[in-house]
């Protein structure tokens, strides 16, 4: 039977009580503490920084591709805060170093008025869809450092997208580019049953949530 509200499980008390639950923890999440699970579906690519490029295309004034050195010439920007994976772990106080996505969009002449959606795509072919509003205004980064060190390959190095206010499958590893569109185009996990937006605070895990 479908159960709109959870029924108590006999004998389950929970390791963390609801009353003293860390307010940084969205519903249904647990604190991964020192671990950082790796959850990619594909083979980790052998991608050297010198071969990495990042493209902003589609509905922007001047589609453009940056090399590693060109991207690093942009103003440095950092994200310090929490991240949340749909598989239910969260990680507090992480530090990603890179460049704000706003700087790349500005470098491409800015979004055209019709641009409303984004497809983020990886050098592996992975894709994730996002509303444009979720990656502008200081809410998204291209990151190549984690905790002051180069981003490890299994976590998306040499560079990944970081959109920390959404579940982390949106933060495409081995980021290759963004395509700005006037319509929504589901990405890899969204075609596999996951939610189109993925707000952890609204528990937007799966299609239909």
């Amino acid at each position, binding site marked *: 039977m479908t159960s709109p509200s*959870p029924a108590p499980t*006999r004998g389950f008390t929970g390791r963390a009580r609801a009353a003293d639950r860390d307010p940084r923890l969205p519903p249904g999440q647990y604190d991964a503490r020192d671990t950082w699970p790796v959850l990619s579906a594909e*083979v980790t690519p052998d991608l050297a920084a010198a071969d990495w490029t990042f493209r902003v295309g589609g509905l922007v004034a001047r*589609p453009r591709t940056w090399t590693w050195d060109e991207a690093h010439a942009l103003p440095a920007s950092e994200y310090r805060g929490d991240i949340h994976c749909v598989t239910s772990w969260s990680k507090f106080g992480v530090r990603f170093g890179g460049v704000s996505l706003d700087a790349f969009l500005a470098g491409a002449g800015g979004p*055209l008025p019709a641009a409303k959606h984004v497809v983020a795509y990886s050098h592996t*072919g992975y894709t994730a869809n996002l509303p444009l509003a979720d990656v502008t205004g200081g809410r998204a980064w291209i990151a190549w450092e984690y905790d002051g060190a180069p981003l490890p390959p299994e976590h998306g190095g040499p560079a990944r997208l970081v959109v920390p206010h959404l579940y982390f499958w949106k933060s495409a590893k081995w980021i290759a580019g963004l395509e700005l569109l006037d319509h929504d185009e589901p990405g890899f996990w969204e075609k596999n049953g996951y939610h189109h937006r993925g707000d952890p605070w609204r528990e937007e895990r799966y299609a239909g949530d």
Partner: protein
Amino acid sequence: MTDTSSGASVPPFVPPTAFAVPGRIAVSEQAAAHWQQALITRIHRETRAATTFRLKVPEWQGHLPGQHLMLRLTAADGYVAQRHYSLASAPDDSGEIELTVDHVPGGEVSGHLHTVAREGDTVEVRGPLSGFFAWPGDRPALLLGAGSGVVPLMSMIRHHRRAGLTVPLRLLVSARTREDLIYADEYGAETDVILTRSEGRLRAGHLAPLLGDGRPDGGWEAYICGSNGFAEHASRLLVDGGQPVDRIRIERFG
């Protein structure tokens, strides 16, 4: 500079997906969205750390081998904990499904299941979830699993046997010792077991007979499941052995 053009007349640049094609298995959005009561009908200890839970789920809409579900526990005050678990059972018409769960040290959900849960209890599940790692039995499949990573792969083997499929299916499963090997009595001619404490880890030599000339017509779909360390190692061996990167699917147990 690498500016190439200007204006919005540039054709879309999103490259084709270069790894295992997503979406070839349709996922029911309705099934994924609803929590259902699941009655624990049987608890069966597999190894020191792994236990199989048989669940009666009256409205289960079926699944494909390789899919997982989310299981939820709720405390009296409303606190919930939920985790993903792979389905171990083959799709059948029994109205029941099986999960095999590793007892993670300090694990909130696996700890409850292993030490508190008993037959007759209910938990909640939603699913099946994700079509990416699923195998409907349509293509030759090469399965590489380690530890509890063998769980979704066993669903594939059970499906292969139950449906009487003739499509090639091979499993290489590794465990630390014979005592740690989940489903030890159930493997047949399709399986090679690697006991890592005595034999060392999976090597290129284990894969060589299955790659190159050993490939079936049309090649393998490869499915890797285990820890991230195992997934990295096994996927590298496959790529080095000539398996196309776009025909490797990986489920990492974080």
